[in-house]
């Protein structure tokens, strides 16, 4: 097991290197630091000195890959690639173009993100499983058809509309919760209720439909038929046989997103003014702060790969037939 995990982590290195090279190429070769400086400084202040100064302040004035001016030690290390990209591997994110320490910002903003994403994730899955089970209980009936139509309708509505409608009715019209904002400590709950509810509701359509299919797949298997044949009641079949076995594919399929919960949701966080990583990223995108965007891309990839590894491990935990090799 341990050897497998270590091997998987080593296997992740070339992928992360690829991500790193790709973002590096996007940010520094397609779009040179000169152009970045020009856009950041605006049309008014553009002069050769201003651009040089802007680049020097942020360490963008070095060669891209190989610094021929330096001796053997600085040949590879005193370059933009090493300074800005290679350091990400040890989670040293450096400073943003505005001069703030990105690492500190991330560790501070991670918690509000998690405070929204974790409850949404857990409640969302539970609600979807309950609904799916309910639909499966009445499978091949009018209720089943109606529920599936409702699911398609729900998943055809853009997430933005759920947020707009939720904010309008719950916050503006009925004054049940604040429209947006965030406070630390227990006060946070008031601000979190609406985003969590909306996150859950927006996922019901797709989730219920998917889980229903998984449960139905289980319901058509031989052991379920055998259970019915030997006289087990329909409720017992559903809760003792279909539910536990149907949960396996559901739980293993959601494991992959767990690490990414740290990244938060761009949309929800920005609409509700929650100071998490999602809105942090969005602010950086809108301010064209490439240093932050690059760090978040790297962090996102790391968390995704972590999720893949966790998925593999969870398979072995729930299904002893699967051997890691």
């Amino acid at each position: 097991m341990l050897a497998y995990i270590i091997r998987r982590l080593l296997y992740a290195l070339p992928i992360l290197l690829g991500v790193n090279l790709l973002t590096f190429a996007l940010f520094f070769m397609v779009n040179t630091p000169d152009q970045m400086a020009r856009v950041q400084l605006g049309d008014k202040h553009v002069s050769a000195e201003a651009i040089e100064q802007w680049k020097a302040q942020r360490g963008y004035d070095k060669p891209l890959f190989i610094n021929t001016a330096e001796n053997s030690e600085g040949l590879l290390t005193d370059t933009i690639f090493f300074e800005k990209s290679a350091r990400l591997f040890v989670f040293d994110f450096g400073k943003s173009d505005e001069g703030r320490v990105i690492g500190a910002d991330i560790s501070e903003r991670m918690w509000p993100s998690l405070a929204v994403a974790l409850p949404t994730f857990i409640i969302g899955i539970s609600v979807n499983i309950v609904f799916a089970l309910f639909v499966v209980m009445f499978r091949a009936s009018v209720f089943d058809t109606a529920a599936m139509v409702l699911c398609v309708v729900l998943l055809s509505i853009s997430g933005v509309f759920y947020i707009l409608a939720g904010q309008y009715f719950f916050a503006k019209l009925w004054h049940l919760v604040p429209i947006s904002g965030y406070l630390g400590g227990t006060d946070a709950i008031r601000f979190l209720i609406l985003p969590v509810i909306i996150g859950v509701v927006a996922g019901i359509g797709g989730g219920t439909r998917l889980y229903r299919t998984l449960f139905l797949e289980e319901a058509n298997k031989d052991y379920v038929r055998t259970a019915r044949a030997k006289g087990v009641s329909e409720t017992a079949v559903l809760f003792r046989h279909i539910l536990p076995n149907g949960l396996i594919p559901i739980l293993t399929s959601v494991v992959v997103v767990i690490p990414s919960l740290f990244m938060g949701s761009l949309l929800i966080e920005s609409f509700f003014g929650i100071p998490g990583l999602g809105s942090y990223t969005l602010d950086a995108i809108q301010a064209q702060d490439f240093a932050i965007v690059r760090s978040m891309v790297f962090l996102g990839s790391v968390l995704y790969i972590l999720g893949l590894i966790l998925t593999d491990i969870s398979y072995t935990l729930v299904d002893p037939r699967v051997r890691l090799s």
Partner: protein
Amino acid sequence: MNELVSVMNELMSIKPVVLWSDVLIYILVVSLGLFFYQLSKNPLARQRWRTVFHSRAGVASFIVILFYLLIALLDSLHYRAPLEKTEGSDEVHYSQEVHSLLDVVLTELRNKDEKTYSAPFAIYSFAKENMQTDDGVVYRDFPRLANAGQHLESAAEHGMDIFVRSMKALLVAAFISAVIIGLHIAWRKRQHSLQSGLAGVRTLPWGTIYLTLSVLVLSCCWVLELSKVYHILGTDKVGQDVLYWSIKAIRTGVLIGTLATLLTLPLAIVLGISAGYFKGWVDDVVQYIYTTLSSIPGILLIAASVLLIDVYIETHPEQFNLVAVRADFKFLALCFILGMTSWTGLCRLLRAETLKVSQLDYVQAAHAFGVGHNRIIFRHILPNITHIILIALVLDFSVFVLAEAVLSYIGVGVDPSMASWGNMINEARSELSRDPVVWWSVAAAFVLMFVLVLAANLFSDRVRDAFDPRSA
């Protein structure tokens, strides 16, 4: 008659503008036509399509999608109108604004600007203004709109007028539908009597088809009739008709849904098949590429790339002489990037399916006969994995339409000058916090987008059921 002549004259003097996305969408339509023609020769595929179109939901959603596609195609023939000639110069200058054939159809909607917001069907403006009576007394009230309800003497006739016009539209629509359906039924009767020997052949659900067509005809008639004298969906902040902009946004939605997949489809097909077919180091490289790409959070990759395109446009202004050309460049780039984030999934599926198919006996037999790689791939493997491509195409469509709205909201979507539902929703944030609330433009975007996405979802469900052996 004179009107017709002047329209013809106008048509002769215009300057066509060909945008890249226009070319692509027409290529797409033609190749889809060819694809279906090829498919119709394949009995198995015909059987499967028959199950799609024999379901009521499948055929109804298909007609709705066709309707949207038709609007998008009309909106993809662009031109620049000539400007009035200046004194003493024979040179013709063309307007900087690019219009499309759809704009000609909707001329009445386009040219009826108000000053600012007005509610749907309103005849008074949304904001109070200072006005003067004839004897010079200044008072403050809601002014009448410049282009809505001009023919009404008083506000009392308002409701009745809407009702009368709706009834008129209903009658016209009923007449048109009746003629079309009547003719078609007569034609079917004749066909039927010709092949009366073929009893028991299931026919398409014509009732549903007629109903869908009638509803579409009715909504077109109603919109055209009432939009002559009212702003059916009100006007936006700068007084433009919301209905016009939400119809214009259809092109953006339909194009992003189709082009995003199609632009990167060759990449997915070539890499997926070669990985599954050649195995070995090719497989390793392809797997490495798609794992790397798919491990980057999609939305961040899109945002980063769109930022770069913005920078490119800002630093190369000379390449984009028209606003429409700039918007189109950005739009295509967005489609491409959206495709880049999604082709990895399709590539993975194609690789797995190719692995499976290339182990089958007839492929092995072809190998034994010494058939070349190209021939095996094109004759034996490609036809057997097209259903996966097809399912991915229809499944991704609705995903991209929805994604556009989110991306435009974040500010990394289509150009703000381009009509799109995302841009309309973006505006809605400030409109919903006004008092009284301005709800109509977000409602318009919601309805038009919802109908398209719902139709696409229903259709893709049917296609998946028919073509995916696993889900059956």
